[in-house]
């Protein structure tokens, strides 16, 4: 039962028609609320993708608490340790010593030395001017058999340069060292969820005799290290672009950014970029397009004119998905997006012109805590936050695109929408699990 401890609030400042929404940030920033939709991955989940690696976080107790329990809920506490920063470290400026001796102490206590250690420093190290070069030089000298990855838990930097998410996805590959190039090996980088084997992207790679490497598929540390031999890195999410650029510079691997998108022309262009790189002929993908349209038609027959809401955690381009659905007759009523990415600009503009009344809602605005979260009619939500804020138990439970890609991805997504509209889900239970797709002991 929801107990409301404050009075009624209106939607002013948290909701706007898309025609009136400023791009990229429709809402004034202020105090922030955190909705209990926890399926997106955090730095602990992402770091655990390196097989056999160990994570050590160096920060104050309040920052440690969230990450230590993320690992515990994943059942990976044996790959996780902490060093607590205290007031005396700030006053005495002995942060370098604390990290070096703390990491050493932990490595000596562990039953087995891990092949790789991800050391996460925090906002406080940045502000104190901690000499991280000295720290890692000394650690590498003490433990030459351990690969140290310089990682960060510094949310204070989220509006300065690369975001913490971008940095994490880049540092995840920082351990890789140059290997002899294997022209028949291709990496997909930066995804947390494996791309569907049935997608045109993966089929193109596999059916043409290439080996696919993806950190989400690595079972051993050696498999992870062998990602360095691939001739090309494919990234699909905007947050992974810096990773691709970094590896292109460090390892000489070509970077192809083939964004996860929903426009037929752009999907075709992306797939043909890969075809061209592999020396294959360009394709029209007529059959695949037709299959996608048929799947959308079938979904529309089930969903009808029911309202649909989409949130930014479900797909990297909520405006792009909304456009696809509107073009195919669906009644997309709401987007839950605090700010759009530049990649969504074209589709945002299309929606302004063609679906001007569509509503855009904030998710972190203070009012969202107490705004009514009930829907008066059966509606479909795509994403956990959309489900939470609309109170709809008919929802597609995905984050980051859910591994669906290309025309095949649209077929699959349409299937999930249809299924979600028929079978209600337990929103309360499902959305509170951290890191959708990770192991969880709850």
């Amino acid at each position, binding site marked *: 039962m929801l107990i409301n401890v404050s009075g009624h609030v209106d939607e002013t400042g948290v909701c706007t028609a898309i025609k009136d929404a400023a791009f990229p940030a429709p809402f004034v920033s*202020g105090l922030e*609320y955190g909705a209990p939709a926890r399926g997106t991955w955090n730095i602990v989940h992402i770091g655990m993708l390196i097989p056999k690696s160990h994570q050590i976080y160096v920060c104050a107790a309040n920052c440690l608490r969230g990450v230590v329990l993320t690992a515990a809920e994943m059942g990976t506490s044996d790959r996780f340790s902490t060093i607590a920063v205290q007031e005396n470290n700030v006053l005495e400026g002995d942060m370098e010593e604390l990290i070096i001796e703390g990491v050493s102490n932990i490595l000596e206590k562990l039953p087995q030395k891990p092949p790789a250690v991800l050391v996460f420093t925090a906002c406080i190290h940045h502000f104190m001017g901690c000499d991280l070069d000295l720290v890692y030089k000394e650690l590498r000298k003490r433990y030459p058999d351990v690969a140290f990855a310089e990682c960060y838990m510094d949310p204070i930097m989220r509006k300065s340069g690369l975001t913490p998410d971008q940095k994490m996805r880049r540092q995840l590959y920082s351990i890789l060292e140059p290997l002899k190039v294997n022209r028949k090996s291709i990496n997909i980088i930066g995804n947390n969820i494996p791309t569907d084997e049935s997608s045109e992207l993966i089929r193109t790679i596999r059916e043409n005799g290439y080996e696919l490497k993806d950190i989400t598929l690595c079972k051993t540390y050696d498999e992870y290290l062998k990602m360095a031999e691939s001739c090309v890195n494919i990234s699909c999410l905007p947050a992974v672009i810096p990773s691709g650029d970094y590896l292109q510079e460090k390892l000489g691997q070509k970077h192809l950014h083939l964004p996860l998108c929903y426009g037929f022309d752009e999907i075709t262009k992306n797939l043909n970029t890969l075809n061209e790189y592999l020396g294959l002929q360009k394709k029209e993908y007529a059959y695949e397009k037709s299959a996608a349209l048929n799947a959308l038609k079938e979904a529309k027959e089930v969903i009808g004119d029911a309202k649909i809401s989409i949130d930014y955690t479900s797909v990297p381009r909520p405006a792009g998905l909304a456009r696809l659905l509107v073009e195919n007759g669906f009644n997309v009523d709401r987007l839950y997006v605090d700010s759009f990415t530049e990649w969504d600009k074209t589709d945002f503009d299309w929606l302004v012109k063609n679906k001007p009344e569509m509503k855009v809602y904030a998710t972190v605005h203070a009012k969202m805590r107490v705004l009514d979260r009930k829907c008066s009619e059966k509606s479909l939500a795509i994403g956990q936050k959309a489900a939470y804020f609309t109170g709809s138990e008919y929802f597609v439970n995905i984050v980051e695109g859910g591994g669906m890609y290309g025309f095949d991805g649209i077929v699959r997504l349409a299937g999930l929408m249809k299924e979600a509209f028929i079978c209600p889900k337990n929103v309360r239970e499902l959305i509170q699990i951290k890191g959708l797709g990770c192991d969880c002991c709850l």
Partner: protein
Amino acid sequence: MKQASAFISTYTADVSGVCSALYELGGMTIMHDASGCNSTYNTHDEPRWYDMDSMIYISGLSEMEAIMGDDEKLIHDIVSAASDLHPKFIAIAGTPIPMMIGTDFPAIAEVIENQTGISTFAIQTNGMHSYICGAGQALAEIVKRFTLTGIPKRTKSVNVLGATPLDYSVNSSVDSIKRRLTEAGFQVLSVWAMGSTLEQMKQAGAAEVNLVVSCTGLPAAKELQKKFGTPYVVGVPMGDQFASVVMKALDKAINTGKSQIAYDKRTACGDTVIIGESIYSESLAAALALEKNMKVKVLCPLETEPDLLLSGDIQAEDEDSIMFYLQNAKTVIADPIYRRITQPGTKFLSLPHEAFSGRIYRKGIPDLIKSVDII
């Protein structure tokens, strides 16, 4: 090394303690932090988050605001949200970066109070201490700011101080405390701070005695003593026999006007160790001694006042020291995460603690007030 933990968890920090203590009172609590505190608190420290609205927010502090010392944005954002949401009070809690840059929270609180007309106060937290410190200060501030003076005492009435989900989860424990008090003839005026409104808590000065059920309630108890002369009793009425001891201590406190520690007759000895918050663990040790004739030591890994532990008990906050003290224990009663540092062959009795393992073992958190037979 004192600050390194290779194996175990971290207790809820001070800033979450503030939010937990003030959660149900209709105020607005702001953690002045970049981002991480928000999800940490609402995921791992707050079992009420999904079902009970409360105005708990972060400020979203950015690098440039910290470098430029831009307090104006914080003030503006709080004033703006308060004008939309009309909280009964505003509390601001700090985290590591505001500590580093010397943010003047009391001054900021004063500016906000002047602009909004809403009672506003700062809690001195920096994210480096435990919830005991944060929740304790927050409840004490409620006494200072909101309790009404000049109200008559009510015969055999009591406030329960220091009940938060961090120590008592959201099972039947708090109801059981109230039931035991009621059955012993006490009138429970308020529970600080679960299940009571700010209006009920304002009347706390009418109580003849206060019952402190965790360290988070002790600063409030001392403030109430200072403000109203109310004595307090430290102890949790666990199990029938120790509950009877607590009730007698409450009567004695009313009659003598002197505060009491209900469990201070026990001798700390034996090779069974309870790990946990001092008042809860000492009360459990006393209950087990009375009901099961068990000889128990308490190991407190959290901040506590020294006189809340008995001679022979241990205060040890770091992993190495805790491992050292557990070497010779035959039985350990503790949160399941401590199992990782107990010796092979040591009998381990699981006693999940929300402030340590969060929501992971919540379903297994027992109501020991009702009965200690589960141990």
